């Protein structure tokens, strides 16, 4: 697929004329996302740090989602997964995503459990 590039991003909302302009377009998009992240990280708006969703601050959810968005565009456009066959793309992405989700789920639940043990079960930790 070396010489054919799919030039649309955002599900066809934005179509670039050439591969080079697409690269710059994706760079601009990634920069905007990074600037938003840094801005939120410095300002830390109170309504985002106070609201919690699934045991995590809303702000942290935003950071994680924006990170996944960035990861998507790096993989799809910089690493050309958009131009690869569906089979290759799925072999790479689904494998990694499945295993990583499993790992995170197990480890975070376990970590939280140990925290509760320290906190409630008379394990003297601060003397």
């Amino acid at each position, binding site marked *: 697929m070396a010489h054919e590039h799919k030039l649309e991003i955002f599900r066809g909302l934005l179509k670039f004329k050439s591969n080079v302009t697409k690269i710059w377009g994706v760079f601009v998009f990634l920069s905007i996302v990074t600037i938003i992240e840094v801005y939120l990280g410095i300002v830390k708006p109170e309504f985002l740090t106070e609201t919690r969703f699934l045991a995590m601050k809303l702000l942290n959810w935003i*950071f994680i989602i924006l990170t996944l968005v960035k990861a998507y565009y790096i993989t799809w456009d910089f690493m050309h997964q958009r131009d690869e066959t569906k089979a290759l793309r799925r072999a790479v992405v689904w494998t990694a995503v499945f295993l990583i989700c499993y790992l995170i789920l197990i480890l975070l639940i376990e970590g939280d459990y140990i925290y509760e043990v320290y906190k409630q079960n008379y394990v003297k930790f601060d003397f």
Partner: protein
Amino acid sequence: MDATVAKTGTEGKTWGGGNRPLNASYGKMMMWFFIVSDALTFSGFIASYGFSRFKFIDAWPIADEVFTHVPFLHGVPAPMYYVAFMTFILIFSSVTMVLAVDAGHRMQKKKVIWYMFATIIGGAIFVGSQAWEWATFIKGDYGAVETKGGKILQFLDTEGDRVAIGDFAVELPTERATHERKNGIWYQTEPETLTSFSFEEVKAGFLANDNLLVRTQYLDENGEPTVLSREESVNKIVNDGKLVVEGANLIRNEYGHPLFADFFFFITGFHGFHVFSGVVINIIIFFNVIIGTYERRKSYEMVEKVGLYWHFVDLVWVFVFTFFYLV
């Protein structure tokens, strides 16, 4: 000769061979193989960071207070800006890398050379920045006192601003005998570096200054480290204080939990090693482009393969940035 030629009768059919269902060359496939396995390695590290963080969720250092320095701006607290700069450098070097790959597809040797050169420079700046970040982290900032339980106590004035231990510690006349194997316990050695003040000096200085308070590493309900009252502070220092910590290493960390420093060194170090090796591989390919190897081969796919690796390094940094500096 003819007798040995095997004909299966399936030529041109699905199972006749010669199919390329993934339509990718062997080299590219193997690069993807490597990237998936390396991604799992990094996820293991970052997930174990999450594990330790959840385990000590109420006593984890706040990254904004740890990484506040920018080179040449001494004493100006500027959290995030330098890491943001590093992130941009890495994303930008990713962009020049894709542009090099694109120019390679068009067989434009000159452009490939210049774009790869820019990529290498970007990578070098990133590794240098990371080294600086490490040095600042190891050197430390304000200094702190470690309790007998291995907890960190930091110092604040009544306005809530951090105070460095060097600002209030008093010089006490002390005699310190150097531990030697011949007159001490033979298997124990002197610590490699001594802190600039002893705990006794910090304690005396703390007791002499009524406007100093202690901040523990435990977070209150607002997610801010708990500040003790003057009375509690004195109690804490006198009863629990044990030694002075300056900076961070694998055992002690003036910013809070030592695991924070351990994971920081390990994960950013492992990532930095990837960037470093990426720069080295880029340099090799860069010279191959210059001497015309791929021009003769009539394919710049090698540039694409190192490009994949380089983007992967960028991808990992995006996650490290989020989980170490933002969340």
